[in-house]
């Protein structure tokens, strides 16, 4: 029984080493990746992505947020009220 658990413990210890090693290796690689992206973006500063405001959408009904009629109504009412109250 205990020897079995000991075997498991050994395996768990190996997992711990290999696992942490892999996590560190992977995320360290990613550090390099991010730096590479930074360099790439400095070299090729694309006009397109720099101006995402031009985004057009093509599916029917894909208009970005039309202001809600209720909102407009509320605003109109508010303005109206305000106008009267400041008379």
């Amino acid at each position, binding site marked *: 029984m205990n020897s079995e658990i000991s075997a498991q413990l050994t395996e768990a210890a190996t*997992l711990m080493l290999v696992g942490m090693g892999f996590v560190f290796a992977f995320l360290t690689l990613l550090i390099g990746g991010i730096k590479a992206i930074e360099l790439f973006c400095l070299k090729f500063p694309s006009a397109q992505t720099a101006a995402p405001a031009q985004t057009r959408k093509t599916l029917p009904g894909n208009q970005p947020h039309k202001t809600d009629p209720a909102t407009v109504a509320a605003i109109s009412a508010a303005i109206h009220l305000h106008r009267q109250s400041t008379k």
Partner: protein
Amino acid sequence: MEKLVILWDSTALAHFHYQQVIMMAVGLLLLYLAIVKKFEPLLLLPIGFGAILTNIPLAGFSEAQGLLHYIYAVGIETGVFPLLIFMGVGAMTDFSALIANPRMLLLGAAAQFGIFATLFGAIALNFVPGFDFTLKDASAIAIIGGADGPTAIFLASRLAPDLLGAIAVAAYSYMALVPIIQPPIMKALTTPAQREIKMAQLRPVSAKEKIIFPLAVLMLTILFLPSATPLVGMFCFGNLMKECAVVERLSKTAQNELINIVTIFLGLAVGSKLSAEKFLSVETLGILGLGAIAFAIGTATGVLMARLMGRFSKTPINPLIGAAGVSAVPMAARVVNKVGLQANPHNFLLMHAMGPNVAGVLGSAVAAGVLLALVG
């Protein structure tokens, strides 16, 4: 008369087992924590309610043709729900702080030691009579230390479905308890002077970098850890939808309605795993204890790694931000900020802690992938 007997026999009163009563009390406790204590209410409220429903005698919520049975089979057994949640979380996550200061990834890596140390601890617990965790069980329990709900649920559904209820409850509970668990550890491992360190302002990050980032993460995962691609892939998909700015409709839906719908169902289904026979065991106590240890170790190794890095870094690093490496986004980063402000009322660490914070999400997804590859 006979009808009355049938009716009496069809009341729960005639069929309650005391364990079911206890589990309902557990469900009510979770509701209390969610509503009154505001502990991760978005998850603990549905989980608590699901726990009550699944333990009702005769109602059969979790048996064939029961509502929770269907939800569990469709969403958890398949792994679909945690992956959709991860997509939504990806669509909510801003990696700017991490891209601006990529070394923060090392903190996210260090904090994962909580996972692997707990895996060892769970196996060691087998020396105690009553515990008999397999390596799969131990891995599923250890992932609590990743402080990431969907990752924990996904891994548990793959490696140890029987423990899923307890693991999910422990994960979300401890994530809610981060403001209580972390500060003492953070203070014990740092000097007041270190806690006052101000960090340099982060450089602005271009839209293009933010678009390429999720793709780069995905590519690395594909190359080196395919077993993590379900989690990392959906996370990066969500993040790409957000950052690319051309599918705002989809991104908004992923981070609002879709994640809300899935959260309701996920919570109820996880709660349905809190049945008396599976939850009321000494193993659950072990899981709760190991989970707390995992959080504590992760916090400690994160802080220690930050101290180590500070020693070799040209720019100053406040070691507190290491604690955010356990993920628990954005709670851990807020805790860092708060403890930082206690040391120096003009030192705002929130943005700096967001780097290790989101690094921790990646770190625990990678750790989950390693466990799936080696143990699954």
